[in-house]
């Protein structure tokens, strides 16, 4: 009997906790709008812990990589010199191409590329649960951040701001299952929507069966979603599966390595729907 009592007591407690959480879930599902205050407060508090944790981890990593770097500095230096020489040659070619492009733009009376205003931010934490693909950055509403602002990195699109607090913000990565962005194939200008799959890859959906897509095609933002500026690189087509005349599945490999993100740029200016982006400038 005493054993039954203990089990019954913990059973009652179990039921009480379950009911309480079901009530919490129900309240959010029926009345949720905008940013929940509880989330913003929790993020604000925990981001300070993450800031300290991230600084400690970064310190250890930098000390370690500093040591490793020192060992391979000579070989790396030689390799970098070779890369620099190649890059200078490539730069000359790009300059010539840019001059030619500018001339063509003037000839066609195209609009000048709209420069986007950005704010740099450090990544101070990742998702608290592996089922969501988010990061926490060290800039919040105090730095001018608002929900739905685009977040980019030098290599491509990262995601969007979802919950900003005063000094930090939660960013939903493009690879999250609930993330999406308007996209187009740079080569053919075919439009579609890129969707996160949660496993590190992206899927290109809502494509016409008539368009031509091949592995290796560059996928850029189309700007039609009103979040991401037009022309930023999302990734490259990895695999194309056709089913008759329609596309069954188009897998996109993201341009950004989300596991190595340390610094990002938040786009502060809302994108103009018809603005020309960097991809347009390259063409």
């Amino acid at each position, binding site marked *: 009997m*005493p*054993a039954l009592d*203990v*089990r019954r*007591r*913990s059973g009652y*407690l*179990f039921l009480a*906790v*379950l009911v309480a*959480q*079901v009530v*919490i*879930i129900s309240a*959010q*599902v029926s009345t*949720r709008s905008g940013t*929940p205050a*509880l*989330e913003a407060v*929790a*993020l604000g508090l*925990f981001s300070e*812990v*993450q800031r300290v*944790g*991230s600084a*400690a*981890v970064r310190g250890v*990593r930098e000390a370690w990589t500093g040591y490793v770097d020192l060992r391979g500095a000579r070989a790396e230096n030689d390799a970098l010199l070779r890369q620099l020489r190649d890059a200078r040659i490539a730069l000359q070619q790009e300059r010539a191409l840019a001059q030619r492009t500018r001339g063509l733009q003037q000839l066609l009376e195209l609009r000048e590329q709209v420069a986007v205003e950005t704010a740099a931010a450090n990544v101070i*934490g*990742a*998702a*608290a*649960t*592996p*089922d*969501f*693909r*988010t*990061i*926490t950055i060290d800039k919040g509403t105090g730095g001018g951040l608002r929900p739905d602002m685009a977040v980019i990195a030098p290599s491509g699109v990262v995601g969007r701001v*979802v*919950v900003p607090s005063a000094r930090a913000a*939660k960013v*939903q990565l493009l*690879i*999250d*299952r*609930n993330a999406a962005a308007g996209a187009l194939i740079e080569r053919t200008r075919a439009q579609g929507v890129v969707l996160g*799959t*949660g*496993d*590190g890859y992206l899927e290109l959906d809502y494509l016409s069966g008539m368009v031509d897509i091949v592995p290796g095609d560059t996928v850029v933002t189309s700007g039609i979603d009103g979040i991401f500026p037009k022309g930023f690189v999302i990734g490259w087509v990895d695999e194309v599966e056709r089913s008759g005349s329609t596309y069954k599945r188009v897998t996109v490999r993201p341009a950004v390595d*989300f*596991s*190595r993100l340390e610094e990002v740029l938040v786009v502060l200016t809302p994108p103009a729907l018809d603005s020309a982006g960097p991809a347009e400038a390259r063409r």
Partner: protein
Amino acid sequence: MRFLGIVGALALALVLQTTVAHFVVRGTAAVDLVLVVVVYVGLSFGPTSGLLAGAAAGLAQDTLSIGIIGIGGLAKTVVGYATGLLGALFIVAKPGARFVVFYLATILHAVIFMGGYELLGLRDFGAPYGGVASQALVNALVGSVAFHVIELLPGAMERRAANRGMRMRRR
């Protein structure tokens, strides 16, 4: 003392999950360190500690995520309670048995967590079998190793025996 230990372990797991796990596991963090701690608490301290640790840890993760607050809490409460019952009814002392418990606990957590989101129509997880299986494997490995390491600490076996004895006396 035990309470502070559990709270400290959960807080440490949460901090590690959001900092170190991000850098260690390439691509996507496929380990849930918080779940590992909840299962450990359930197995070591019984159903009440397990369910309370699960509820607190799950709610903390929910508030720090972009999902609905309570679904993760619900999943971890059930996992903490179930593993607590399992630990109270059976002697789960062999590494193999612990591995299986951690593995099954991750599967149970995924079923409740993803099932909750799918049921409410808030998130489509597709067919996440591979992802869940790999996460269960990693959690089971991390959990089994952590369990073993904790038992190597001085006085750990005595504390464990005392906890078990206390639970038996309560019965």
